[in-house]
Structure formats: structure tokens, C-alpha cells
């Protein structure tokens, strides 16, 4: 029984990590007032860019160095998601396009890129079969050497690749920056009231660009974790599924707080797979349980709007284009 619970917790955390990255990225972006619905697409691109980088490296050398495997694929992933979020930032900030339409188009575009290269990468290099980056996947899955020696505790909490821990560290750092630094204060002010921030001498445009791009890069790591660690370097089209939207749901569930996002992600990750751990569950009942995260999110959404408590609201200017028409 305890072993089952332990393995469930492990699985929930593994499922939760990509969600955590996605929701952290979206929180950072939304804090500046940008509702980036392109995050699901960015996560696909983050994943496939890592795969492409790793693939090219593994192909070009005889014996791939694990460290270089990680560095190259990580850099490729970050660059891919940064480019994606730059498209969003350019269209919504500089060209003042509607955020919802831009975001949805970005998701279509990003999922398309992911699946296209996922399905055609080998063909483009005149190879056949399916993508599987053994070395890079192995490098990402490297765990602390002493984890298995610590018994159940070690296996449950210390048996993850480095990207899992970095997600939690990034969450804590994000929380610190948002709440304890001037940068965070300025960013939050922009999301709440860009005109006031502007009058206080804050460069609204710069902050919105940077937070959108950083947010996108962090979200992209969720895609990278999924393809490198979870599936160990293999790509299946649409394998990432709707996790990107679940990440956006977590932002609401966590009330835009990075630290709450950690546990929310693990809860949602757990709900994603709990059906496997409940014995005797029919396959149809499993589908009902998978519905839970969304229902819970809607309930939270209704609750915060009914309560109307100021601290729990989305950033006030979320989704709105700021234009300093007159001064």
C-alpha cells in the first residue's frame, strides 16, 4: 500500500513538472498584463527545438558527451520558445494586436511546428523510423547517485532528473523576484495599472517584452522536460496533449502565485494519472476523473469572481492592450 502511494506521488510529481513550467511561464507573462494563450504552442516548440538540437548533435558525433547533449538541446529549446514569445510580444506590444487572437494563432502555429518536425525531422535528414534520442534522454534522466540508497524516501522524492528540481527552484526564485524585488514590484504594477506605472517612470514596453519572452522560455522548458525526461528522448505527435491548457488552468487555480503553482501542479499532475492507481476503476470512469482539474478550475474561477477579493483577482489589465494615447 505504502509503495503504491509512494509510486503515485512520484508519478504525480513527474506529471506535474511540465505543468509547473507551463504555469510559471504563464504567471510571469500574465503579471505584465499579457494573457498569452500561445503557451501550449510554445511548450510544443520548446520540446521539438530541444529534440532537433539534440538530434543534430547526436548525429554529428560518434560518442555524444552527456553534458554537451544537455547544453545543446537546452539552448535550442530556450531559443525556440524565446522566438515564439517574441512573435507574441511583437504582435501584441508593438503592433497592438488582440491578445486572444494572437495567442490562439500562436498555439496553432506552435503545435503545427512541433508535430511537423516531429513527423518529418527524420525524413528531412533522409532517415526512417521514429525519433529517439537515447543519449540525450539518458543524460536528462540522470539522477542523484545516492537517491536509490535512501530507501523509499529517496525513491519517492529524489529520483528525478535535474529539470524537475530546477522547476521548483525557478518557482521559488520567481516568487522571490515578484514579491521581494523592485523588478517584481514594477512588473506587478504594470499588470495592474500600466498608466500608473508609466507615470512613475517605468518602461512599460520593455517590461512587457521581457516578461513575455522569459515566461515563454520557462514554459518551453516544460515541453523539453516532457520529451527528454518523461519520454526519454522520444517524440510522438500530439504526445504532449492538452497539458499546455492545463498549465493555464493551474495559473487560475494557484491564484497567480508561483509558490502555490508548485503544489497545484502536483495536484493536477496527480489527478491526471490517479485513475491508474485506483484499483478496479473502469476505463470510462477514468475519463470522468480526468475532468476534475478543469471542473475545479472553473469552481475557483467562479469563487474568486463571486468573492471579489482584490488579492485573488487576475492582474487588472490582463488581456488589454496598453497605449499611452495621450499624456
Amino acid at each position: 500500500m505504502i509503495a503504491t502511494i509512494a509510486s503515485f506521488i512520484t508519478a504525480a510529481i513527474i506529471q506535474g513538472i511540465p505543468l509547473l513550467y507551463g504555469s510559471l511561464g504563464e504567471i510571469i507573462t500574465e503579471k505584465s498584463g499579457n494573457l498569452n494563450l500561445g503557451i501550449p504552442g510554445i511548450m510544443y516548440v520548446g520540446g521539438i527545438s530541444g529534440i532537433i538540437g539534440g538530434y543534430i548533435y547526436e548525429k554529428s558525433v560518434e560518442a555524444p558527451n552527456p553534458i554537451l547533449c544537455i547544453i545543446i538541446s537546452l539552448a535550442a529549446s530556450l531559443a525556440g520558445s524565446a522566438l515564439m514569445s517574441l512573435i507574441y510580444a511583437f504582435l501584441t506590444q508593438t503592433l497592438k494586436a488582440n491578445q486572444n487572437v494572437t495567442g490562439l494563432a500562436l498555439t496553432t502555429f506552435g503545435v503545427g511546428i512541433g508535430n511537423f518536425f516531429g513527423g518529418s525531422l527524420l525524413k528531412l535528414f533522409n532517415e526512417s523510423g521514429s525519433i529517439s534520442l537515447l543519449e540525450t534522454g539518458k543524460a536528462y534522466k540522470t539522477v542523484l547517485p545516492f537517491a536509490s540508497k535512501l530507501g523509499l524516501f529517496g525513491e519517492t522524492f529524489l529520483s528525478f532528473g535535474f529539470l524537475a528540481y530546477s522547476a521548483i527552484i525557478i518557482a521559488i526564485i520567481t516568487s522571490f523576484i515578484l514579491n521581494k524585488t523592485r523588478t517584481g514590484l514594477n512588473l506587478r504594477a504594470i499588470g495592474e495599472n500600466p498608466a500608473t506605472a508609466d507615470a512613475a517612470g517605468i518602461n512599460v514596453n520593455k517590461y512587457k517584452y521581457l516578461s513575455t519572452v522569459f515566461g515563454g522560455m520557462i514554459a518551453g522548458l516544460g515541453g523539453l522536460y516532457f520529451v527528454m525526461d518523461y519520454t526519454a528522448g522520444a517524440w510522438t505527435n500530439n504526445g504532449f496533449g492538452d497539458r499546455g491548457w492545463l498549465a493555464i488552468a493551474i495559473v487560475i487555480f494557484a491564484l497567480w502565485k508561483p509558490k502555490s503553482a508548485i503544489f497545484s501542479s502536483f495536484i493536477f499532475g496527480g489527478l491526471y494519472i490517479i485513475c491508474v492507481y485506483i484499483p478496479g476503476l473502469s476505463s470510462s470512469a477514468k475519463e470522468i476523473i480526468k475532468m476534475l482539474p478543469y471542473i475545479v478550475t472553473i469552481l475557483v474561477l467562479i469563487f474568486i469572481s463571486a468573492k471579489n477579493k482584490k488579492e485573488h483577482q487576475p492582474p487588472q489589465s490582463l488581456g488589454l492592450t496598453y497605449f499611452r494615447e495621450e499624456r
Partner: protein
Amino acid sequence: MEAPAIELRNISKSFGYITANKNINLTVNKGEILSLLGENGSGKTTLMNMISGIYYPDAGQIFIDGKEVVIKTPKDAFDYRIGMIHQHFKLVDIFSAAENIVLGLRNEKFNIKQSTAQIKKISEQYGFDIDPSKKIYEMSVSEKQTVEIIKVLYRGADILILDEPTAVLTPQETEKLFAVLRRMKEDGKSIIIITHKLHEVLSISDKVAVLRKGEYIGTVNTAETNESELTEMMVGKKISLNIDRSEPVDPQDRLVINKLNCINSDGLKVLDNVSFTAKSGEILGVAGIAGSGQKELLEAIAGLQKLESGEIIYNNPKTNSSDNLRDKTPLQIRELGVRLSFVPEDRLGMGLVGNMDIVDNMMLRSYKKGKSVFLERKKPRTLAEKVVSDLEVSTPGIETPVRRLSGGNVQKVLVGREIAAAPTVLMAAYPVRGLDINSSYLIYNLLNEQKEKGVAVIFVGEDLDVLIELCDKIVVMSSGSVSGIVDARTSTKEEIGFLMTKKAEGGNSNE
């Protein structure tokens, strides 16, 4: 002699063809409080915005401590130790006072604890009573104002500009604010305060500078002046406009307003026991400094504003019945058979839909008529054509979105539609604001026509000359209450100006 803290020489600024400021001179010494007095639209705020870096002057010079300076952004103003407290606060609601105060600062480390200590120090120095960790949304208006003042002091301002700071304060809070200002003055700071209230001017300031219609009238020492001299400087000599005014024919009580009280979303009392009667065949003027409750009054009558108490009795000339319009929606008011037309202050944001063409705007009020599910555009089209030709609206066509028309033409479209509904009560808020002379006279004539048809016209205006020549009676409002009702034929500008700036004594002070 020490150079003045700030000196303006021949400052001018125009927006398009409207001159907001013309050759203004102003001097404030260290440790001095200057009141800037003037009616609405006299250019006070524009002038102050040029000192604080929001606008840039077209001509003229600014001297700080005797040296000429250029102020292009709010940051420049901060660098010259100038701070302005705007009428509309620029604060982030969910932040604490301390967070708002340090927002955007770059020259110090971010440390809320230290900042809090610094804020406490400033508070003690000047006698503020503020909790730096309190959130803005939990604060009263006066607390928010305190945060704004501390924000300016925190940045080290030596010259403080306050734009109508007492408009939102109770008399007690005003007293407290003045005590703080006096302490700052003793500290050697220079203060410019914009206000309309004469008694405040006399009690707080050392000097008074008066602007009228963008022009500089003069500066007097407070000790050597009195209310009547200031009023005369502010409103000027009477100018004859030659607006035709007929005698009211058979006036009857059409709309009886009885003890209206209203509290707005900020918790401020915006209507305080307001009572008056609007008669048929008369133009009733409403005078007052902007924000004295005129907007809420008209919106309350139109069914757009919730009231705490009071009655709005409409005497229907057709059925001879009387209805209370209070708490009725615009639709319910129309269903009662009340023909109430309303030209709101915000023409494109409320009275019209900017992106719709003239035809579609004509049917805003009437589109629901008839049982058909479809719109009937024939009549609105005829009406649009009629309004365009009768009121000489200059437009490429009746299918042009009204957003593309000029201000005067937008107003003609709006007034034309409201009059076309054959109202028994016509309310117009600042109907000639921003209009040229010809359009203005056209609007006056339209109102007069309505009056002669027996309509009860309520005209909210800001130009006292117009009010005196156009209206039959004038209700003067001050801080949400009626400070007097005068006969427009016998009253003078000075009398109305005095009533407008009269201190609210709570309750009604009718005659």
C-alpha cells in the same frame, strides 16, 4: 534677495486652435503658499501640467531657483524637486501605501522595511496619520491623497503642486490637510494649490494668482484682498451675448426634485439634500464648479444613478398623474410615458455610439418601437436627413460613423435626436462645450425653441454669461448641495460665482 523657488515667464500653450494658456507669469518663493484660482477651463491644470512634465510649453521660460530649466517628462520634474498631486490619483489598488510610494524609484535599494521607516519619518515630520502597509483599496479618499503627498515628499520635492486637493475631502479632512501644508511651508517648501473655494484660498495661502479663460489676470497678496475682489477677478466683467430670451408662458411644475441624497462608489456624498422644481416653458440653469454633483443629478433623473433617499416627481401633462421616477430604469421611465430627453456630457461614450453611422445613432432611443423583430430604418433615415439639413451638420453622408465627425457636428447629431423625441423634459449637460460660436448659438436657439414649445429644459453649463442670458432660473450647486436658486434676469455673475464657491454648511441653504 533670494531667487524665487519657481518662476514662470510668458508661458503659452495651445491645443490645436484652442489656446489653453497665454503669456502666464507666476512666481512662488520658498516657504510660500500660492493659490491658483480660476473657473473651469481657465487653464489652471494645463499650466501646472507644464511644470510637472506632462505637457511641454509652446513658448515661455521656467526658472527654478533663478536658473532657467527645461522640463520634458515627469522624471525631469522630479529631478528639479517638483512634485504634483493630480486630481485623479495614480495609485495601484492592490499595492500597499509603501509599495506605491517607492514605485518606479531607481536610485535606492529595494527594501520595504527601510522605506517604511523613511515614510514614518516623513509622516511624523508633517503630522500624517498613515499605515504604510495598508492596501490602497482599503483606504478612504483622504488616505489615498496622503499617500500621493508622501510619494512626492519621498522623492524629495521642494515644490508641491496640489490640483483641487479639497474637492474630495470633508471639512475636517481639509483642516488636517491645511495643517500639514502649513508645516511644510514652515519647512521652507513652496506650495501651489489649485482650488475654487474662496474661504480656503483666504485661509491657507499667502498669495493668490487668478487665471481667466487661459489668461493671467494678476496676483494679489491674500492679506490685502477679500472674497468679492477675488470673485470679480475670477469671473470678470459681464459680457453681453445677445441670446434671445422670451418670457415663460404658463409655467407649470413639471419635475419636482425633493431632497435627493446620493453616495458614489468611493463612499463620497455627491448629492446632499438637493431640491428644486423644473417648470414647463422655462430653462432652468444649473451652475457650479465641475464635480459639484451636476452629473449625478442628471443621471439620477435619467434613471442611471442609485439614490440613497429623495423623490423625483414627474407631473405628466397628458394624464395629469404624478409619478416618482426614483430607482426606475430608463426603460421603465419611458414605459411610464415620460418623455425625457437627455444630452449627456460624454457624447461619444454615452449619448452616441461612435462606430455607428448617423442613421443607426438616430434610432438608439426608438429602435424598440413596434412588434417586428427587425429594425425599421426608414424613419431614422428620414430623421437623420432632417437633422443633417436642419442643423447644418457637416458630414460626408448620413452613413458616416459619427466618430469621424467634428465635435460640434457630433453634438448637433445628439441634440437633434434628443429633440426629435418631442420631449416634455430636456436635460442637457454642457451642450456647448468645445463648440465654436456659431454651433453654440445654434444650440441656444434649439433650447429656446423647446422652451417655447412648453418643454421643461434643464441646462447644465459652465459659462456664467451664458447661464445668465439664456436661463430663467439658475440653481447653483456647491459640493453636492444647492447653495442657492437665483432669478437669472436679476442675478449677477458675482452673486452666482460667490454661491458656487460658498462653503457647504451641510444641508440645504435655499434662499
